[in-house]
């Protein structure tokens, strides 16, 4: 059973009120939702709070979950709306512009060796920092499109902007991101 059908099964069981399925669902998607929340907050503890809020919202609405291929875009839409609400509420405490790379807990890297893992973690830290430098809409497009792999139509639907805007902004945002990463690398003597 692949991940997609596994998730579809979990979704159906959760809709039916299966508590064990809900726990399995949380374990399966918590990494993705936490990563998405982190891309909005830029702060680890805030991202945990936000991810928990998203899960509570999902749990409360589990009777209305869409099924099949509509679920993941819907999930991201809910997460995105919740994140925007969260940032609005926390506007007095603005998210950090720079990311503390030390606080990023990385998943185990498939590359063997501590050095390779450290390089990979460093690389991801650079990417996070560079992402924080993008404008909010460009960052959202890159995160949804390139990080989480949604297609442009889904991204346009989630963000509520025209398809063409997503396409053009996505290209510019990628180049801008690459430039920022290179600049950060040079600044740290990695270039």
């Amino acid at each position, binding site marked *: 059973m692949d991940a997609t059908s596994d998730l579809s099964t979990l979704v159906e069981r959760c809709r039916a009120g299966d*508590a064990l399925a*809900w*726990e399995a669902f*949380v*374990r399966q998607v*918590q*990494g*993705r939702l*936490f*990563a998405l929340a*982190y*891309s909005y907050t830029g702060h*680890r503890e805030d*991202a*945990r709070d936000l*991810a*928990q809020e998203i*899960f*509570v919202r999902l*749990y409360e609405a589990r009777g209305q979950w869409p099924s099949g291929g509509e679920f993941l875009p819907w999930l991201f839409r809910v997460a995105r709306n919740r994140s925007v609400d969260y940032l609005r509420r926390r506007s007095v405490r603005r998210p950090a512009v720079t990311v503390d790379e030390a606080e*990023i*807990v*990385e*998943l185990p890297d498939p590359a063997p060796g501590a050095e390779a893992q450290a390089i*990979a973690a460093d*690389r*991801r830290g650079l*990417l*996070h920092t*560079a*992402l924080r430098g993008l404008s909010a809409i460009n960052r959202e497009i*890159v*995160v949804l499109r*390139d*990080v*989480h*792999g949604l297609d442009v139509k889904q991204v346009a639907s989630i963000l509520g902007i025209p398809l063409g805007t997503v*396409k053009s902004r*996505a*290209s*510019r945002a*990628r*180049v801008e*991101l*690459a*430039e920022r*990463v*290179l600049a950060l690398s040079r600044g740290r003597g990695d*270039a």
Partner: protein
Amino acid sequence: MSGITCDQIRAATLDPGASPRDWTGLPEAAAHVRRCAACQDWLEAFATGEQAWTSVPAGDFTDQVIARTAGLEAVLRDLPRLADMDPGLGFTERVLRATIMKPSPVGWRAGASGAWRALVRRPRFAWEAAYVATLCWVLVFGNPVGAIEWSRSNIGAVARERLGPPVRELRSDLESWRAALKPEPASARGIPAGAQADPAPPVLRAWQAAAEWVRGAATSAAAAFSTAWERIVEWFARVFGEPSTAPTEPPAGPARSS
């Protein structure tokens, strides 16, 4: 199949010896790009940056292209790795506590019942209940001594009001009962004074004696009941207030001695 792969297109883009425009004119590469969304995105991004790169001095152009495209490639390769982050220890349990382990809302009856049980189980509940009761008494009745006086007079009034009508009715019944049981005098039966009535047959005499005895016993019982009632009313009046004369007065005199 054109035989061109994504890696070849990207390698061609990064080839410092080739102009970025040379390879895109190849029919095979164009056919591949038409079918491959990833390469379309790549070229779109490349084209977006190309306009800026044209302003770069000729000597640095190749280096700039290499740096930018290499950076872009690396970014596109690395971005999906950001899709999954470990939220840390205890996050799953935290979410489960906030969702599935959260106590479900209960009805007000069950909630009140549970709250009452929890309250009663507290060791100091008796003291607290006594305190609350005393507080309520003082708040409602004010000064305790005055409250007792007030209660006595009011309870007496209530007793008189409630007990008065049935007592009057009972007294009326008793009087009529007494009148019915009272033996008729001989003159009332037409027998002259000093004259001896005809002796009745023995059976009749025995019957009359029995009737007399029953009559006397009933009269005595009625008198005893009346006396007891009188004492009860007097006790009520003494305890709860002024005696109620009219309605609770027991039947008087002559019947009592009969």
